[in-house]
């Protein structure tokens, strides 16, 4: 029998070494999840500062310079620090358990890909305390605002992005290698749980586009420090080139965020419908189709940049096409529920909210794809509302659902159902109060990234801020629920945990032992 992990009883030294040197997929998954939660709270705090300043017209609390740093850091920390690592954490915990593997294929690289992340974010956030302040050019860091006109600390930002990219690429290679090589006998590709499928596709996206991001920031580095003119019009460069390069990374990136969320929801909805997922194979094909389309639609973020009309038309048509596979997914989820035997535990509530709100974000996405209308929507709060409906209600809601769903399996304790539901309703209502009015603000003409605004936007901004504080409060409750469950939750040893749960991870004992599937299971 393999020896177990060091616990606090073995002394602090051993306990800390365990986490620092661990190659165990469950430990690394846990590290990823806690790290992403910490980043989520930090990025959330930035959002609270933004919403507090926007509570009323005028500059009350902070100056525009710091406001721009907050919007930038909020975006960067949430995308690269909170959401992406959260799903990598879930992948680490779940993929080996779902495909009947003893661990990830490349455990040492797994350790490295996690442990460079805290350094990346330490470097990034430290800029807030430096002379010149943190990055202040938006999470999309358009040149030349992020090159010629940026504070010197931009070099730290570039270094941080490089490290995050390396981490993501290593994590993705690991996932691809694991799924290709370590499936249990009989676990054919078309038998893999959908979460595994969506992650494999995501991993391929990451491997393809992270180097593009690295290229973009490297060109910035050259422009800033070595006298090149990639993005400097005065030297013969082109600022628009930056946007093409960035969005060639950036659009797949948003699907990198959302595809694993699709996977999570595709696990949870069948469980609480007590019915198999409807249209499994079409789900797989739809995911692949979305991933493919993500590479060919990037310039729909640039409809106002002055592209030739042929380009605009192409990117408009291509973008509209995304609605087809995405629609298939939504229909499949709903049909899975149809004639099921539904119960509404917390993970299911978050998943249903995901389907509704994500679809709503999809509708506004379809509106945004229409180039002529986008001339009015572009860079307004309508866009902010749209991507928070797909990112927050998409990734964060599904991440929360995942934690409630698998937490009993991970730690052998049950969360408090009432507390979970209380959190859900505060989050759901708070979310909608925050972001629904932002549609109105955008349509009425309020641009995004505005530190201050005219009096005509005052009412909805105040409503939005109140909702934001409410939604922020729900996350504190989430943290409390998780800690309470791990520490004082009701113990359970039911391997299935949920009546309708299907899949290899639910055949393991609860809580999942440190080493699982040392001998591969047989899949029929």
């Amino acid at each position, binding site marked *: 029998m393999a020896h177990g992990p060091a616990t606090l009883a073995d002394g602090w030294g051993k306990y800390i070494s365990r986490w620092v040197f661990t190659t165990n997929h469950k430990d690394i998954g846990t590290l990823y999840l806690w790290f992403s939660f910490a980043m989520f709270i930090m990025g959330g705090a930035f959002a609270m500062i933004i919403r507090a300043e926007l509570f009323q*017209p*005028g*500059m009350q609390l902070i100056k*525009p*310079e710091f406001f721009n740093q907050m919007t930038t850091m909020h975006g960067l920390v949430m995308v690269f620090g909170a959401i992406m690592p959260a799903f990598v954490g879930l992948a680490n915990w779940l993929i080996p358990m779902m495909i009947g593997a003893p661990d990830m294929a490349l455990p040492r690289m797994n350790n490295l890909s996690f442990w460079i992340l805290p350094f990346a974010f330490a470097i990034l956030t430290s800029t807030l305390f*430096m002379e*010149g*302040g943190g990055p202040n050019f938006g999470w999309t860091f*358009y040149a*030349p*605002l992020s090159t010629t*006109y940026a504070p010197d600390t931009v070099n730290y930002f570039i270094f941080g992005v490089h490290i995050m990219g390396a981490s993501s690429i290593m994590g993705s290679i690991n996932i691809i290698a694991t799924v290709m090589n370590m499936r249990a006998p009989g676990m054919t590709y078309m038998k893999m749980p959908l979460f595994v499928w969506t992650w494999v596709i995501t991993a391929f996206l990451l491997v393809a586009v992270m180097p593009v991001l690295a290229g973009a920031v490297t060109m910035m580095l050259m422009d800033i420090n070595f006298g090149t003119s990639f993005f400097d*019009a*005065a030297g013969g*460069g*082109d*600022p628009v080139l930056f946007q093409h390069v960035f969005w060639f990374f950036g659009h797949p990136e948003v699907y990198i965020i959302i595809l694993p969320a699709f996977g999570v929801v595709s696990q949870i909805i069948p469980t609480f*419908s007590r019915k198999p997922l409807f*249209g*499994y194979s*079409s789900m797989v094909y739809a995911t692949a189709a979305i991933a493919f389309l993500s590479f060919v639609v990037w310039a729909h973020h640039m409809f*106002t*940049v002055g592209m030739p*009309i042929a380009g*605009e038309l192409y990117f*408009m*048509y291509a973008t*509209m096409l995304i609605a*087809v596979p995405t629609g*298939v997914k939504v229909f499949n989820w*709903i049909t899975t*529920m*149809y*004639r*099921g*035997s539904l119960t509404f535990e917390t993970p299911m509530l978050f998943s*249903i909210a995901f389907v509704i709100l994500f*679809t709503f974000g999809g*509708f506004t996405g379809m*509106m945004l794809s*229409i180039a*002529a*209308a986008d001339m*009015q929507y*572009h860079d307004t709060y309508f866009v902010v509302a749209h991507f928070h409906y797909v990112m927050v209600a998409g990734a964060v809601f599904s991440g929360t659902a995942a934690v409630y769903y698998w937490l009993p399996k991970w730690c052998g304790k049950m969360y408090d159902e009432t507390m979970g539901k209380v959190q859900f309703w505060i989050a759901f209502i708070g979310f909608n109060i925050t972001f*629904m009015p932002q549609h*109105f603000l955008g349509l*009425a*003409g*309020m*641009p995004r990234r505005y*530190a*201050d*605004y*005219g*009096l*005509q936007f*005052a*009412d*909805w901004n105040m409503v939005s801020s109140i909702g934001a504080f409410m939604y922020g409060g729900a996350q504190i409750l989430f943290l409390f629920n998780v800690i309470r469950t791990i520490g004082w939750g009701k113990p359970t040893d039911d391997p299935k945990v949920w009546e309708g749960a299907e899949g290899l991870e639910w055949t393991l004992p609860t809580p999942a032992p440190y080493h699982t599937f040392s001998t591969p299971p047989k899949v029929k």
Partner: protein
Amino acid sequence: MLKRAQALFLGLLSPAVALAMAGSVSAESTTRQLNMPQGVTEVSQAAYDIHMIMMWICTVIGIAVFGFMFYVMYAHRKSRGAVAANFHEHHVVELIWTIVPALILIVMAIPATSALLKVYDTENADIDIKVTGYQWKWQYEYIGEGVKFMSELRTSQDEIYGRTPKGEHYLREVTQPLVIPTGKKVRFLITGNDVIHSWWVPDFGVKRDAVPGLFTAAWAKTDVPGTYVGECTELCGIGHAFMPVVVEVKEEAEYNEWLAGKKEEAAIYASTIGKEWTFDELMVRGEEVYERSCAGCHQSDGNGIPGVFPALKDSPIALGAKEGHIAVLIDGVAGTSMQSFADQLSEVDIAAVVHYERNAWGNDVGDLTQPIDVLNYKQGQ
């Protein structure tokens, strides 16, 4: 009453409906506007129309999909004794819900394409105006007319920082609005001077990025005189929220009168450039210019923002030779965000602000900087 109740009911069913319903009452209140403005040009009308078409299509789909979902959630719950079926695929249904949305998209693409063609129809303009984005103001140049001016925010820092009450036009007022005539096709040629800005007038349906080194074109033609307010919509630094666009549409005769006045102004200005200014005159004008054009970065107290924007108080440039100081304003400083102000400020304004910077906040050089010094520097280049 019944209609309202129905609206409320539908609104509860689907947030999309709430948005659509809310849109129909938008005209009643400017402070609680909920929907896109219809605007006053063909382009803005086209954008509005396609926006409404899309919204209604989404609303109908939303009602159907969410309605079915809520029915399922109600009818097939375990607590009502529902027993799970075991089906998990149905090829015909799956084909239908792949093909039908694709057909809907093809139908949508037709009006979307014609609306876009309208946006791009910039040929045969009557008037060409060059719009240049600066950090953080707009410059308008009437091509072929010799009229060119800057348009900057008029709202004071005191209003922004809450030291005085905010006016009715808070952040919606500029020193000199762009003026265009009714009934003429005006083409805007938009570019940027430093970073990327974006010039947006919602009521014209015109939004174009102002990219350094690139010209993009947009157009407007309207018969409705009035004042139309827009914004900068591309993050461009700390003054991003403080560079509104204000356009006045005047009847043609009025416009011609205005244009003639502008030309005359330019002529008068050119003849008075040789005037000698006194120390105090320069200080007063200089402070005005400084607050408008310099304080955003270098701050009202001249201390700058450490690490980003250098202090002018006790700065070697402000305390050094006058020519060197003027040179910084005229040429800018390469590789930094200090741009050239040669095209943005008049000779008088540059002289005044240089004078002010050399004699404010305890800087006490004591010399005078006259417009002619600036002109000499420019011509000596």
